[in-house]
């Protein structure tokens, strides 16, 4: 079972459906204790960084324990941003701090922000999460983004060059929506499911 963490930030139906399409069973845990049975955790989410406040100390403790045992975690969109130290969108809310850096608002350098639509991901280094994925277009919808660091696997350009895929060990994140990115998105989810072995 893959645990799909519901913290009230958007709709989980499409992520669940996409995981089912790649042969994984996903369930929404009712409490942090349910994470003990999960082979992997997906933290989805859209909207405001402040929504991650709902992931309180109990959830954080259970998620950190899960990671500590070497089990995989995938953050999607806001769920990826939460893996960083924080975000300028809600400076008072701390992120998980698994990746270094803070998320920031994309500058509107001759482009529209929010960044909505299909854009390129340029893969800068090989990593399990991008197995069998070439440079491709995927579906984004966000205004804040994570900085490019040593953990970055792929970047995307929109107003600035930001981290669109990140991975270190069993922890991965994608800024776009793999559940809405056609075959490329499904391949990324398949790669994550493979990590959960």
């Amino acid at each position: 079972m893959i645990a799909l963490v519901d913290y009230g930030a958007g709709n989980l139906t499409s992520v669940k459906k996409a995981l089912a399409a790649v042969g994984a069973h996903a369930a929404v845990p009712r409490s942090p204790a349910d994470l003990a049975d999960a082979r992997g955790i997906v933290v989805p989410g859209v909207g405001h960084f402040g929504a991650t406040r709902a992931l309180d100390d109990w959830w954080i403790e259970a998620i950190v324990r899960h990671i500590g045992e070497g089990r995989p975690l995938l953050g999607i969109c806001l769920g990826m941003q939460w893996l960083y130290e924080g975000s300028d969108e809600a400076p008072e809310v701390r992120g998980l701090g698994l990746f270094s850096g803070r998320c920031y608002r994309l500058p509107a350098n001759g482009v529209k922000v929010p960044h909505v639509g299909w854009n390129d991901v340029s893969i800068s280094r090989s990593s399990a999460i991008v197995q069998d994925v070439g440079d491709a277009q995927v579906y984004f919808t966000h205004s804040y983004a994570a900085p490019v660091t040593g953990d970055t696997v792929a970047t995307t350009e929109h107003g600035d060059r930001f981290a669109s895929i990140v991975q270190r060990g069993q922890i991965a994140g994608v800024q776009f929506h793999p559940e809405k990115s056609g075959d490329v998105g499904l391949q990324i989810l398949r790669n994550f499911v493979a990590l959960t072995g």
Partner: protein
Amino acid sequence: MLSKRIIACLDVRDGSVVKGVRFEALRSAGDPAALARRYNAEGIDELVILDITATLEARRALADTIRAVARELFIPLAVGGGIRSEDAAAAAIDAGADKVSLNTAALENPALIATLATRYGSQAVVVAIDAKREDDRFAVYARSGRTPAGRDAVDWAREAESRGAGEILLTSIDRDGTKAGFDCELTAAVSRAVAIPVIASGGAGALDHFVDVFTAGRADAALAASIFHYAETSVRALKTHLRQRGIPVRL
């Protein structure tokens, strides 16, 4: 580079796709799930299901249509038409819609935009504006283009954005179904006024109409129905043409 999106619209009545001219004279164009599948195979970027049924039974059937389309397609799906309340929006989203499109309901109760944006995020809230040229301005119409809303399209788009809308779906009533080309002046006026994406709709009839709306019209996305339904143009042929004209598309 961010691609210009090509969106196919399925106007659905009683479970089947229909299409009219200037919002009238509807004729049938097939099964929604079958059409959605074809468009997806051709590389459509997004789908809109627009419910143009009035009855309650048909509205429940719409949830089945949404489910059927969402089950097999992993691209963004918006649903609009008759979404008048938070509950109706929730029903569409629970059935598998990623976005809901509000039109008359947003005009009558603008607070609904913020309610849904808070609950689902702005990316899930599209405000649809049907506009018609009147003298030197663009007047907004409600109720499928029948009732003047007493609003200016540019002002209303700005207000919708400030209330939390994530995108504007802008339809030219004058051009709807005419295949005379998009209203690029209307589209550019609204696109300049807001930071959120503007989807142009109404009038697509030739490949160069899309070129025009992405350049002169400053549109972020373009929506069409009849040009695709009757297989006059494939999505792929359109995108190939756009790329040859230097417009970024997903191919």
